[in-house]
């Protein structure tokens, strides 16, 4: 069980939005994590270094936060589910060319119909998927 944390959620959301605006304003780039990953996979070169740096910044920002506050770590979640979910997530986001950040935040911000359809699809399917996993199969709490 987790509590509704509106102030942290909104502030965190505004920071994520600031990150997206910063990257567009300075570099003219979309802050999409899938684009960062696939860009590095397809043609790793010096011109792709910024993508790696963004991901390292993402990890660093999270580590920095971890110095001042604790995030509860989930215990006992089945490893095979983590692997299956990861493969589906990686394959699907690569095929759709975007995930929650690229389509969900940046795509909606530039008023892309394609991103709106993608976001509605993965959000709707995720709601169904979470229901099935938790309440039909009873695989996680």
């Amino acid at each position, binding site marked *: 069980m*987790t509590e509704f944390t509106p102030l*942290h959620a*909104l*502030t*965190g959301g505004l*920071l*994520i*939005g*600031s*990150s*997206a*605006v910063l*990257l*567009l*304003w*300075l*570099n*003219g780039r*979309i802050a*999409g994590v899938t684009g960062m*990953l696939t*860009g590095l996979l*397809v043609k790793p070169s010096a011109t792709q270094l*910024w*993508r790696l*740096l963004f991901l*390292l*910044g*993402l*990890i*660093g*920002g999270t580590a*920095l*936060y*971890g110095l001042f506050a604790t*995030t509860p*770590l*989930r215990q006992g979640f089945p*490893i095979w*589910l983590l692997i299956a979910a990861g*493969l589906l*997530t*990686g394959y*699907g*986001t690569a*095929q*759709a*060319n975007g995930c*929650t*950040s690229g389509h969900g*935040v*940046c795509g909606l911000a530039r*008023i892309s119909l*394609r991103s709106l359809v993608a976001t509605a699809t*993965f959000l709707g399917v*995720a*709601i*169904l*998927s*979470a229901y099935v996993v938790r309440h039909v199969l009873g695989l996680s709490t």
Partner: protein
Amino acid sequence: MSGKATLRNLAALVSGLVFGLGLSLAQMTNPDKVLNFLDLAGHWDPSLLLVLGGAVVLSTLGYFLTFKRGAPLWDSLFHMPQALAIDKPLLIGSALFGIGWGISGYCPGPAIASIGLGNPEALWVVPSIIAGAALQRWSHDRQTADID
């Protein structure tokens, strides 16, 4: 590397850092928090809605003002996705992603971010995401990417 390229790399690092701070503050690095939003039949936690809402409203405004400038500060043009089609790969890919997200509570950003927490789950979920993405890229003959 030119001066501008160095500045762009620095901007990407800082942007990633702010992104990570935002995800962490919003507790999106906690997969239970995400799943409790997605699971409408449980003890529903609407936090994710405010995260997405806050991010989208601010970036829509910021994007509008930025596009009005005509060009980014440290590059000559905006690198925008070229794909417009609402086609089968978009729908199938998004659906597959939705299944995975609903199982684990990790979308790619928070999955990678959770490395910074030393979360052991990252050991399994991050390589799996990379393997899935690599499989898709290599099996689809490098289809035209959205982003150059």
